[in-house]
């Protein structure tokens, strides 16, 4: 407490003790709720990943150690057979898809979001309308945008093929979402379209915090605008960008809905979340899917820790106060 209440030391102590006690009671319901929906289910998922539980008999699973992750058996012929997720090509394909998708989509969204933010940062006529228009993709539910784009990318009647044919960029109609080569492109396009507004908003907020007189000074000194951008704007924007990138990255690493709806069952786009749910629910390999979920969780946890540590990102906002 910066200033002390009127009465002496002992009552100040009891006051802060009373506040701390009240704080515990205020925090308890929230912590219990979070334990029930987050910590406990997570622990159970990890537990399931070490058993042979199936969807139909959730409580009959036996402890089988790391067999869902990796195990090997030596055949009498001397050949060794590896089993488990870590020896499953479908899993590594999903890992590769997830990483590829996350890196490319977040990189594109950052660059495009920055461009949109720089445009919105200018003063021009109709500024408010442009900002409103930019927010629209963000406001549309992911599933709805997946369906809208699915229709626009339709091979026979889609408008994208029509436009591209008319301007001569392609010669025949392309089945964007069904083709192995283009499915990932389609997913990336929709994701970038959908989430660039979010990036742009965070970048814009960062831009608005940069004091104007820095630009005035640069202008007086006659520094080229592009140089100003790289020497002044970008370094000052870095903290905001770092936070925006990590939140987008986390979202991208766990992507499920867009891929499930836009390119169902495509090997080229199946991500870790998609393949884990498939095993958990559809294929009745509950424990196997749990192992894959656990691996995704571990990957994200490692990534976040490394990012915060290496990038010295202040997420809690406690230090900036």
């Amino acid at each position, binding site marked *: 407490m910066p200033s002390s209440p009127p009465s002496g030391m002992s009552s100040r102590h009891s006051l802060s003790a009373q506040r701390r006690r009240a704080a515990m009671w205020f925090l308890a319901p929230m*912590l219990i709720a*979070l334990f029930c929906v987050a910590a406990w289910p997570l622990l159970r998922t990890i537990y399931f990943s070490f058993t042979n539980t199936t969807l139909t008999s959730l409580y009959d699973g036996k402890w089988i150690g790391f067999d869902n992750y990796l195990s090997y058996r030596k055949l009498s012929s001397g050949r060794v057979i590896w089993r488990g997720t870590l020896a499953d090509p479908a899993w590594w394909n999903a890992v590769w898809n997830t990483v590829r998708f996350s890196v490319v989509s977040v990189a594109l969204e950052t660059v495009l979001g920055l461009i949109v933010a720089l445009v919105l940062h200018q003063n021009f006529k109709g500024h408010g309308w*442009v900002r*409103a228009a930019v927010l629209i993709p963000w406001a549309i539910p*992911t599933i709805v945008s997946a369906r809208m784009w699915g229709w626009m990318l339709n091979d026979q009647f889609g408008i994208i093929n029509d436009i591209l044919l008319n301007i001569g960029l392609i010669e025949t109609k392309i089945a964007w979402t069904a083709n192995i080569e283009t499915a990932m492109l389609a997913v990336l396009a929709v994701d970038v379209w959908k989430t660039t507004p979010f990036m742009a908003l965070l970048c*814009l907020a960062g831009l608005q915090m940069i004091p104007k007189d820095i630009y005035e000074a640069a202008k007086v000194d006659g520094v080229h605008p592009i140089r100003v951008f790289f020497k002044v704007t970008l370094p000052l924007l870095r903290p905001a960008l770092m936070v925006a990138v990590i939140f987008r990255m986390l979202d991208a690493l766990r992507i499920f809905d867009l891929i499930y709806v836009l390119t169902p069952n495509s090997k080229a786009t199946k991500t870790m979340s998609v393949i884990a749910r498939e095993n958990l629910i559809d294929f009745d390999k509950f424990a196997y899917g*749990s192992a894959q979920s656990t691996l995704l969780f571990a990957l994200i946890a490692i990534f976040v820790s490394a990012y915060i540590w290496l990038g010295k990102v202040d997420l809690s906002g406690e230090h900036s106060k």
Partner: protein
Amino acid sequence: MSKFLNATLFYALVFVIVGVSVFPFYYAVITSFKTGTALFEVDYFITKLDFSNYINVLSSPNFMRSVWNSVLIAASTVGFAMFLAVTASYALARVRFKGRGLLLICILAVSMFPQIAVLAGLFELIRALGIYNTPWAMILSYTIFTLPFTVWVLTTFMRDLPVEIEEAAIIDGATPWVIITQVFLPLMWPALVTTGLLAFIGAWNEFLFALTFTASESQRTVPVAIALLSGASEFEIPWGVLMAASVIVTVPLIALVLIFQRKIVAGLTAGGVKG
């Protein structure tokens, strides 16, 4: 001359940004007014207003049930999260105690959980509670992302409220509960509206849990209903009806976002959390 060129390029860029942002929704609106073979002709403008797709959607009992389910689930989730978050964020923002920073990081960590990591455990919990295939399954599971988000944003907001008003209340002998309900709550309406709206949108859009924890058509939420809407076969997706349904569930969201856009931008940047 170069100034003129710069201005032209700038407005061209603005035009492209607006065009790309708005076109897919515009095209969905165009499609939603088409039926039969008209669907298979590419048009860039509305040629004729045919409301039969909309009538079709609005008179479908299952779809209207999904809308009701979504409204009920999103509203309950947000109400529940708000109730827990207001008191918790007071403790986190205004009371100094050991481990506060760590607790905040933990809460933030929960909002970063990949949903799939808790899916198996939640599935078991929901089965054990006997709420599988009921709205309660979603109300329970959505707490995992609405609660950390509301706590986080409300904490940042409360931290910025001036100390003086609270001190005055303490000198008058107000208990922490009175401080929250009488002093802070009236000041927090803007923050509550913003976080409530963002949490509502998050719950409204959620797909993975809703897909996994429902089985019958009448229990589906809007995203699941739209994702699983199909015709007799994969090649007979009723695009006109689908786009009409999409427009119906998107228009209220776009309206809300545009009305509250300043507040939403403030809330997103305060939380820095996903929208």
